[in-house]
């Protein structure tokens, strides 16, 4: 499904990813953990096609094709989705307009019929309910004045609406209270399908109790330094990252 090969990326002249190798099969859910500043978000951004990264070496192959030359919107059409660690506020644009525009752009590109206003409302109401969100969020400006937890739920709502085939969730659990964490995890679990893969970036093993990963990787200093099953998360929770980061970070 997705293969990252020897990926080297620099930002502002600073080497951040130094040879990432990762292979995620269809329907698999992988977790990436690792110390602050190790390059997790950078990896997520590079996957989604954000500007400003200098890809010095390596490639990302998705469905047999390289992603690197594709614009972010093309990647989204192809089914890539990133739930941002820090969701962006867009003053003056309502969440409803934002969601509907996005969904219809993606649907049109995928050869699906665009949603009418009523169809859209019907779909979005269903997803809102599953995430225990109120309809009021639709009329609010995108993420403006949202609490940290509301922003994260809004990311998951977008993911549910856009029906990606490969989703990256960058610390979607941070900022969520215990109940919200369960709701969001449920939402994510419902989206798990044999043809939909996910990469979940997190600092906490707790999330992985709810969303059980097929594999866990440790990213440190821009490389995957260890991979294992879900028990690796438990080990990291106990021991921390000193083994990987040390003073050199």
């Amino acid at each position: 499904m997705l293969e990252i090969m020897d990926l080297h990326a620099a930002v502002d002249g600073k080497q951040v990813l130094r040879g990432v190798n990762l292979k995620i099969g269809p329907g698999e859910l992988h977790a990436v953990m690792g110390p602050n500043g190790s390059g997790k978000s950078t990896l997520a951004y590079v996957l989604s096609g954000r500007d400003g990264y200098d890809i010095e070496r390596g490639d990302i192959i998705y469905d047999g094709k390289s992603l690197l030359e594709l614009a972010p919107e093309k990647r989204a059409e192809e089914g890539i989705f990133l739930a941002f660690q820090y969701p962006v506020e867009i003053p003056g644009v309502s969440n409803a307009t934002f969601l509907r525009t996005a969904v219809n752009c993606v649907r049109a590109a995928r050869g699906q019929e665009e949603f009418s206003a009523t169809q859209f409302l019907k779909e979005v109401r269903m997803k809102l309910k599953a995430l225990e969100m109120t309809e009021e969020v639709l009329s609010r400006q995108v993420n403006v004045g949202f609490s940290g937890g509301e922003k994260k739920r809004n990311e998951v709502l977008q993911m549910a609406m856009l029906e990606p085939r490969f989703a990256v969730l960058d610390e979607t659990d941070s900022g969520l209270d215990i109940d919200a964490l369960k709701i969001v995890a449920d939402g994510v679990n419902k989206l798990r399908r044999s043809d939909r893969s996910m990469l979940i970036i997190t600092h906490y093993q707790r999330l992985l109790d709810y969303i059980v990963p097929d594999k866990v990787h440790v990213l440190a200093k821009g490389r995957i330094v260890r991979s294992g099953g879900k028990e690796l998360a438990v080990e990291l929770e106990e021991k921390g990252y000193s083994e990987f980061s040390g003073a050199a970070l």
Partner: protein
Amino acid sequence: MLTAKSHNDFYFEHFGNIKSDLPGAKLQWLSRARTEAIERFLDCGYPTMNVEEWKHTNLLKQSDSFPVMGEPSVNEVAERDIEALLLDSIPSHRMVFVNGFFCQRLSDVGALPAGLRLTTAGEMLVEQPELMEEHWGQPWGFLEHRLSGEEDPKPHSMVALNMALSPGGPVIHVDRDVSPELPIHLVNVVVSEASGVMSQPRTLLIAGEGSGVTLLETYIGGGVQPHMVNALTQVRVMKGATVRHYKHQGEGSNSFHLATNLVRLDSGSTYSGCVFSNGGGISRNEARVRLEGQRGDCTLDGIYLGRGQQHMDNWTRVDHVAPYGETREMYKGVLDEKAEGAFQGKVRIWPEAIASRAQQLNKNLLLSEDARAFSKPELEILNDDVQCAHGSTIGDLDQECLFYLRSRGVDEFVARKLLIEAFVGEVIDRAPDVPIRAHFRKLFYQWFSQAS
């Protein structure tokens, strides 16, 4: 290139030729006022960039192409052309003027409610000369009252030129406590003839005590020859009245649009103005508001969208003369390609105007490296008992927002449109009239879709 001197001769001669045919020519006070006006213009000449108020608009750059005066016998304008230019027609009482002259055939005034008079200066001068003398003849706005106490006519020479030469445009009179349901729509079409044309549209709105009225002015048209529109609109908002005043300035790129709005607010009255400009090669929209009675409430908003080589100047001045007044200003510009935009806005709180409040904001979005914006919001506070704030920004589109949208599958063009619409939408949504908001949004979409 014509010199200012030869322009003077030209206007003077022209004035001599037409003055006896102008409406109300036999009224002594009026012919005196017109003579005084042309003399003021001749004394001052075109405002130059040395005049602070005109520092961003260079008239002399254009002057060799200063065209002849429009005549009533202009080219034919077809109704469907007007409809097309209007984009959509809002239900309204509509009067159409071509090159400054009333065109009955294209107008659609409809049934007027009792207490709303919609006519021309020519008719009003016959029927109610005293009323016209009070509101039309008095050259308020002729003089700039400098803080030094000096009275300076120079910034107002284009107003003087209009007062001298205008054939008299629409007059709207709203009686006491009358609030017409529909807006009044004044459409000023410019049709450029072979030699180019200059028009002097002049509008008067009198909102009687406790009345409420919506006025939309639309300036459209164009042609291959350069032409100039020198517009003057006077608004008198009487005690407790509310005036919502919108303008779309959207002529073609050969147009040179200069406009002055002069507004007087009596006590407890409300004026809410919004200018949407996306037309003209060079445009300058000036608004001068005086809060002369207590508790006046003034909103002055503007949107200017420019591309190509357009130059768009916005100049506002609000004088709080009486206590407890409030002013809110929000001007936003979107400038692409080599367009230039300017905002100069001053709010002056006079010593007597205690407990005044004023807010001024100007924001500019530059969509290209060659686009430029000048911004100078200014508060002049002459007493201590006030609450005032102002600010301005010049920047490009937020790259984070753009990426966020694109990462959701929204292509760059649509993403930019959403963000720019959100930017100007903040101003549009302040408009009290919902149909006007919709109209402005359509104008925005049309403008955006014409991006090259």
